[in-house]
């Protein structure tokens, strides 16, 4: 086994996802710490440009590009990734704690008998080894874990756990041929795109989230406008989703998605523990609520105590101004 660090690059519409660049940036630190190489792994169909793009972050980019990888499947992608890992024998594989990550890496961990640490939010490279930071119980407790040294280590991180560094000189791209094996037990029938949401909720830098205080589905257009303006996403509390004002896809919290944007603005939501557990690792938290005693203020950095229907139009105008200034 080498001491190399591999990053599995996820693409969306053939473009590398931002979180993959975050992983390459932190992967650089891990590789320097162990005096080893940093590799990007790009798998898909028509992803040569993506490989070009990430090659500025890695020493070497391993590319597997063929038509049978057009649609993701754990069977096809898994057989290819397994082939790559068995050939190069890295010490670390870093990936996203995304729907794809949760589908693909557990099976890979079994095949390679790897140490698997999932849904981490940070790491520490002091001393000999590596320490991985993983929240438990919805963030009530932070655990620090270390892999035992004798096997490969797979770590998945939540998006927005690390900053994206600058690309450097482009490293070589090595194209590999591995056959994508399909599992005969699963036959795809159809695929339906949900919504036209440009930004993935878990990857968004900016989230504005509405709660029951939004009062009706149509009022969410106010939040959508601000989200679009900021290049971010609208989220929702469970109450909102249960009232069918928004889709489950937007739900933030314990039984929805865990998010960690740079800026989170909660509007008309009380800050129930189940909700907080899905957003309390956000960079800066803002709460807008008319009730000064709403629990959300205990978790927020900034608060406005007022009627959200009066605040939001003004907030939109102010944000627009700052966008125009820059």
């Amino acid at each position, binding site marked *: 086994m080498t001491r190399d660090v591999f990053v599995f690059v996820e693409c969306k519409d053939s473009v590398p996802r931002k979180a993959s660049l975050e992983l390459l940036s932190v992967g650089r630190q891990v590789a320097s710490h162990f005096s080893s190489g940093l590799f990007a792994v790009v798998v898909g169909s028509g992803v040569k440009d993506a490989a070009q793009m990430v090659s500025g972050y890695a020493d070497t980019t391993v590319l597997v590009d063929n038509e049978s990888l057009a649609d993701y499947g754990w069977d096809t992608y898994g057989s290819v990734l397994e082939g790559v890992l068995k050939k190069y024998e890295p010490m670390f594989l870093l990936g996203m704690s995304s729907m794809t990550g949760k589908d693909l890496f557990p*099976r890979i*961990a079994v095949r390679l008998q790897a140490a698997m640490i999932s849904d981490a939010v940070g790491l520490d490279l002091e001393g000999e080894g590596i320490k991985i930071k993983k*929240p438990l119980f919805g*963030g*009530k407790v932070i655990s620090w*874990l270390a892999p035992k040294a004798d096997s490969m280590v797979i770590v998945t991180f939540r998006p927005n756990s690390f900053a994206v560094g600058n690309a450097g000189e482009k490293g070589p791209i090595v194209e590999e041929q591995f056959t994508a094996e399909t599992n005969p037990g*699963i036959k795809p029938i159809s695929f339906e795109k*949900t919504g036209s949401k440009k930004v993935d909720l878990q990857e968004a830098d900016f989230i504005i989230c509405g709660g029951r205080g939004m009062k009706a589905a149509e009022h969410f257009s106010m939040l959508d406008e601000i989200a679009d303006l900021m290049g971010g996403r609208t989220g929702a509390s469970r109450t909102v989703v249960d009232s069918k004002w928004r889709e489950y896809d937007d739900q933030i919290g314990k039984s929805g998605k865990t998010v960690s944007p740079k*800026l989170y603005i909660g509007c008309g939501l009380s800050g129930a523990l189940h909700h907080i557990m899905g957003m309390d690792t956000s960079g800066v938290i803002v709460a807008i609520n008319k009730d000064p005693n709403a629990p959300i203020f205990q978790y927020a950095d900034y608060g406005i*105590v007022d009627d959200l229907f009066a605040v939001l139009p003004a907030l939109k105008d102010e944000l627009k101004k700052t966008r125009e200034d820059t």
Partner: protein
Amino acid sequence: MKVLVFIKEVADTEARIIISSDQKDLEIENKYTVNFFDEFAVEEAIRIKESLKDVEITVCTFAPPRAVEALRTTIAMGADRAFLIDSRNHESDDPLIVSRILAGFAVKEGFDLILCGRQAMDDESANVGPMIAEFLKIPHVNQVTRLQVSGNGTAEVQNEIEGGKKVSEVLLPALLTTQKGLNEPRVPLITGVMKAMKTEIAVLDPAAIEIPFGSIDRETSKILVLSYELPAKRPSVSIIEGASPEEKATGLVRALKEEAKVL
């Protein structure tokens, strides 16, 4: 048809958790519930039984004996049998070990369909389902939101994937993990509760189960827990004052720009 459901008992959101002074252990208040996502798995198994003939539902957890109560809840809902694999002496922080044990149980019992939750609410690893499937060399589908099991060994499955929803035909045996939206878990009827109270729940020793997938000895865990700590606390909230909502909005944006530097 044999349907196996794996459930985990997890600490309730409200449960108090205390970190020991050496930061090596957690003490969890005795408030436990069935993992939120696992309730959908139990419910779905019961619906399959209601729509097809000759379905047997077996529920299993790898946990300390107190989790017998969680298993009773599933019997009250309508499951047929329940097993507790005693985790004392085999507790492990490595998902591979937990998955080996559960996969071993699946081999021993036999199955056509295995249902798990999307992820456990406490550790949130979302590993166990696909890992069991890999050990058993069967296909899996994650985050299932619709399921139609036919009598002829196939199922039509809708699930959430990146960017949308996918429908597939799955050949059984297979493993599915359940997502919110799949169904509305029922509240047990009093007759169900009475039946559950009388049901004998078998407790198994993991060492007595033949596990052909590698060691379950905790010494073979590939993960070391170094320490636990409380999350860093945020400084207390700074309330933006102003004479009008407009002024407050202006003040907020200024603070976000100049102080927090996030705009």
